[in-house]
């Protein structure tokens, strides 16, 4: 399936992996893929998301807090991560603790982060969306449509009035108008 991905769609998948790693999330979910669309400029998906009025910060807000798990397990040792963080930030500024190389490396995670079930399904659905439109490639627009069906990404998009059927029409219109695949 990945061999059918356009360069931009491939870049989105790579970006999703990086987002998950930066956040120390053990799995790439549909919300990571959705957020990753914003990391690859000049794509049809971004034109659609902009037209639908869904901003990057809307999607970011829909992701769970990144260090929740760390906070919970450190609490079992009597360490209050929020307290540590606020004291560190008093000295080194906002976000200092998360911005170190050590924190971003997330060294307890394996190098390759697997997709979760939702993300796998969304990728399969993006293939189906491409086939449905008679396209022999999977672009960011198909990824976006694939993410609208189900799961966390849908939970972020649906309350903002995003609908699959209307989005399909928009994509088809953009493709017809000769917007370059991507």
């Amino acid at each position, binding site marked *: 399936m990945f061999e059918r991905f356009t360069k931009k769609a491939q870049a989105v998948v790579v970006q999703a992996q990086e987002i998950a790693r930066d956040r120390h999330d053990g799995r790439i979910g549909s919300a990571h893929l959705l957020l990753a669309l914003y990391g690859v400029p000049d794509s049809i998906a971004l034109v659609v998301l902009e037209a639908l009025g869904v901003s990057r910060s809307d999607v970011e807000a829909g992701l769970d807090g990144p260090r929740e798990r760390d906070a919970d397990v*450190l609490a079992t040792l009597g360490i209050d991560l929020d307290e540590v963080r606020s004291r560190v930030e008093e000295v080194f500024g906002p976000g200092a603790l998360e911005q170190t190389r050590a924190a971003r490396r997330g060294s307890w995670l394996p190098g390759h982060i697997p997709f979760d079930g939702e993300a796998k399904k969304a990728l399969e659905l993006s293939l189906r969306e491409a086939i449905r439109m008679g396209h022999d490639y999977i672009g960011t627009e198909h990824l976006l449509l694939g993410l609208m069906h189900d799961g966390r990404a849908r939970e972020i998009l649906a309350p903002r009035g995003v609908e699959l059927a209307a989005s399909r029409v928009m994509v088809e219109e953009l493709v017809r108008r000769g917007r370059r695949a991507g």
Partner: protein
Amino acid sequence: MSDATQVAAAASSRDPAVGLAAVASLRVLLESLEELQVGNARDQGWSWQQIAGALRVSRQAVHKKYRRFGF
């Protein structure tokens, strides 16, 4: 803490997954703090020898670890 009851239950359990995850998180926290403090010390003109002494490690160890960071 998001859920005090859950955390309390986790603390009292003998589940290795919880205990090991806590050690892993602590290690990242430690590394992160060390990086901030070493950077700060370098900004303030501390030598690698001084930093190593304060961290109670060898000068080589601390220099090898942080020389690529541009401190």
